């Protein structure tokens, strides 16, 4: 029996310990805000926080999630008012939106570690998160905004 905490709630799991956390979140807990994009750690769509750090849930087996505290996009803020989410709305970042849960979770983890990241630090932290619609410049602008830095570039 695997015990873990998801969005502040204690959970128990007795299924396949090799199942990635991604599918547990999506199909057993219906936290479908966490997305599948590649299953190989290549795209970042499945990014969640494990003990506050950004982690690819498709690469995290249930066995290694035991005892950990998981936060998904649904648990990032009770009212979707995390500064990163606010900035995402202000900049109208999403196009299709599919990658954005992962982007937001990655960005939130970045700002926790580096409250005022440089552009190079933003790129380094975000380059594992693919956005096929190409919202990157708004992502960068929104992260700068959320970190209280001036936003460069015309909009």
């Amino acid at each position, binding site marked *: 029996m695997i015990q873990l905490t998801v969005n502040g709630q204690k959970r128990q799991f007795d*299924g*396949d310990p090799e*199942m*990635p956390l991604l*599918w547990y979140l*999506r*199909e*057993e*807990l*219906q*936290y*479908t*805000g*966490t*997305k*599948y*994009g*590649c*299953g*190989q750690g*290549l*795209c970042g*769509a499945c990014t969640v926080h494990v003990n506050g750090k950004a982690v690819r849930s498709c690469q995290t087996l249930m066995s290694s999630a035991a005892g950990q505290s998981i936060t*998904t*996009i*649904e648990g990032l803020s009770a009212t*979707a008012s995390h500064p990163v*989410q606010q900035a*995402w*709305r202000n900049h*109208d970042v*999403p*196009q*299709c*939106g*599919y*990658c*954005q*849960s992962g982007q*937001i979770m990655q960005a939130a983890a970045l700002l926790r570690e580096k409250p005022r990241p440089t552009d190079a630090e*933003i*790129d*380094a932290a975000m*380059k*594992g*998160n*693919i*956005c*096929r*619609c*190409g*919202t*990157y*410049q*708004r*992502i*960068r602008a929104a992260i700068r905004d959320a970190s209280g830095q001036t936003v460069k*570039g*015309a*909009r």
Partner: protein
Amino acid sequence: MQNMQNMQKIDFLPRRTFLAHLVSSSAFLIGARAAGLDFTGATTGELVSDADKAAWNPNVYLGIEPDGRVILIMHRSEMGTGSRSVLPMVLAEELDADWKQVTLEQAIGDQKYGSQNTDGSCSIRDFYDTFREAGATARLMLERAAAAKWGVSAAECRVANHFVVHAPTKRKLGFGELATLARQQPVPRKEELRFKSRADYRYVGKHLPTADRDSLVNGTGIFGIDATMPGMVHASIERSPVFGGKLKSYDDKEAKTVRGVLQTVTIPDLAGPTMFQPLGGVAVIANSTWAAAKGREKLKVEWTESPNAGYDSSKFRQTLLETVRQPQKVVRNVGDVDAAFAKATNIHEAEYYAPHLSHAPMEPVAAVAEYKDGRVVCHANTQNPQAVQDTVAQALGIDKKNVECHVTLLGGGFGRKSKPDYVAEAALLSKAVGKPVKVTWSREDDIRFDYYHTVAAMYMKAAIGERGKPTAWLQRVAYPSIGTTFNPAATHAEAFEMMMGWNDVPFDIPNHRAENGPAKNHVRIGWLRSVANIYQAFAVHSFLDELAHLAKRDSLEYLLDLLGAPRIVKLDNNYINHGKSQDQYPLDIGRMRNVVEMAAEKSGWAKKRPGAGRALGIAAHRSFLTYVAAAVEVEVDQSGRVSIPNIEIAVDAGTIINPDRVRSQFEGAGVFGASIALMSGITAKNGMIEQSNFHDYRVARINEAPRQVNVHILNSSAPPAGVGEPGVPPVIPAICNAIAAATGRRIRELPVGRQLA
């Protein structure tokens, strides 16, 4: 185990007669009939309301509830372009509704809406008039209802922000209070409608957030991959690695030992034209996506040898190049190219090549379907729910009226999701197992079994005259056509493919000929964002720039010279022009020059000089009836790595509804175009696709994408044109032209990859 309680909560309502669930029986409803639009053109629309039910065949529903809410039933899919949010702005504008009281409901698939195929950058241009008329009609009926109630002249009654106001007495009634009365009004004739003047617009032309913005930031938006049905099981499908291979035998013993695997089911081999039929294969059915995928790994399957088993894309490249070196079918002829070549002393030739591409939308295709008592109910991330109805009906041998397709949000589409093979897979499997079945393609499935953007070779030849300007221009192209997907015997390009930047090259050159050679397909071919424009514009606008360099002239000045004086270029009458007349949407060189000059000016073209591996490049292209120019700055480092600090894009797409969504589409086109130019490519060996996921099918990441794309929208009151696709074609040659300016190396084959190393 599934948590049934939660599943119910996010489940979709079954809606046999969906209106009943969306709008109450006392709502004032109005529909607008619009054309069943395709490339061939439009029919005229007609409006209907409650008052003449006999004629009711509504296309777009607008309902006004007694509590004042305006409900719009949107028939276009949302895949990131904002189309399902932007069209309602047009309707709300003419209705003069309070935007806060407008709610959207997604339509199921139904031919009464006209085309729902959210494809071809046509949502606005094909439905703009329809939505304006629907709004203006409802407004007039509300005014007349109020006038009747007050016993005054309707001319004294005017709608203002969700109320009808009688100016002389300052009385007012809300939309909700008038809903019941308005439904008794006869529908006004089109000639009676009044439209708002642009100066009075409150929504159109303004930045309004999309209806889906918040749900995409808090994780609650429901995509196809998130859709559920009570009691559903999951499927993962093993398909022939070579297109055309048929199932010979399989052994599922080990697969069935995987915990959670329930059974295996075969899907019949693909027969007849590819169309949108499933590819066939062996499905592992399990109680979770994970168990199904694990079970599939344990399957042992043998396939028959396919006629495509010899497909090798590097050899096929040679075949295509040899084809375009020979005279081929003429698709456009101006003047006498041969005579001009015979006289010429200076000839320049070049060959170009562009590989297959995969759509790779961030969300793979996914659908859940339930077959029961001869009916199918499904939820899918589809661009085209009516094609779902047709395809599922055909696969199961039922009437399409018995296929109810609900459209989820789409995590990108780019053309892949207008081909509903995956929905038919889910429906067939549901029939076989007697439960709702969810089919979720893995990324590997997505990359290895796509409807690929085709592979193309182009041959270009020019006779060089005075100041390096061509006196004759010949262009020849060959590629497996999208037509092969519908007719396996097709050899040449379809007229709509030629339309996309091949038989409409607008240069001021006296002798011009465009040709198209035959090619056979070895994989499924489909349309991908901006379609044939991608390789055709790559060759045409790269070759133009080659000629500028040869002539030692400035690329911008040369481009403007080749475009020539502002004028209307009359194309052949059989030129499709996206189904629009050339009177309404002419090929206007003046508008093309304007975008070129705007992009150049914003890029600082006149002041910037290339240096140290850094330079500007420019290209301009009309597609989807929209004029776009891109001025791109590239940097090429010592190791041959290309980065793109900046792109300036100028756009004339006619009337603009939501400028922020236009900007976002062109920002995205900059990134999509950069992926195609620099890194994406699908190759095949022994009939098998060599790529499988984002490590080898590369798309631009934040550190590889253009750093900044600035979008400049030209003010225009011309009829609206496309936005989702036309940004892509000019970006690719503009990048390559900038590379040539920076390094002296001409890119004749996509992607750039390590060519500069």
